[in-house]
């Protein structure tokens, strides 16, 4: 069975640009969460979506937005990129009540 898939795996952007990251959850998983991991730190929660509705939002500016589609895949959008947005962006899917998250390999964003 396919795990969580994320695309692209690596990308380079310049300050002020926007980026869209994509995530496909494990089949049957309706919950998708996004995390940002800056080098040397633990992941920080950005968003959770369940059944296409936002279930939670972390302490990130409005430049960050996300959505979930009818097939439960998800997009994370970041506008007006800053150097500090350089990080590994991780997507995780889950069955809502089990607690265990299944992570993709991440999208590594570099902002120059």
């Amino acid at each position, binding site marked *: 069975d396919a795990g*969580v898939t994320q695309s692209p795996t690596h990308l380079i952007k310049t300050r002020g640009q926007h980026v869209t990251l994509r995530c496909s959850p494990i089949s049957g998983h309706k*919950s*998708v*969460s996004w*995390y940002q*991991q800056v*080098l040397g*730190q*633990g*992941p*920080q*929660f950005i968003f*959770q979506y*369940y059944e296409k509705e936002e*279930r*939670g939002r*972390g*302490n990130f500016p409005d430049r960050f937005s996300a959505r979930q589609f009818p097939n439960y895949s998800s997009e994370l959008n970041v506008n007006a990129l800053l150097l500090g947005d350089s990080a*590994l962006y*991780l997507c*995780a899917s*889950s069955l*809502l*009540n*089990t*607690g*265990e*998250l*299944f*992570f*993709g*390999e*991440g999208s*590594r964003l570099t902002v120059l």
Partner: protein
Amino acid sequence: SQQGEEDPQALSIQEGENATMNCSYKTSINNLQWYRQNSGRGLVHLILIRSNEREKHSGRLRVTLDTSKKSSSLLITASRAADTASYFCATVPSGSSNTGKLIFGQGTTLQVKP
């Protein structure tokens, strides 16, 4: 912001030795989980312990939870070179219905020398 601290930040041991990592957290929790990450790749779930449990085992892994001290430990027995990775604890706050929101610690980097 991170939920808590992990200790030590880095650990280097010989193959065959045991590795112990500690995690402290700040608020009451529903459950605590441990994840492993190889070289900046995706995280892999290792074990989940609920707030009403004190100890849990999975293969060579042993996790303890002390809710009175708001702390947990992960013991890896008979370590192997393949155990080299970063290990993170993560918590779900008590009363939270948002099970997709984990609060991670800073992680412990484990190096197991052959």
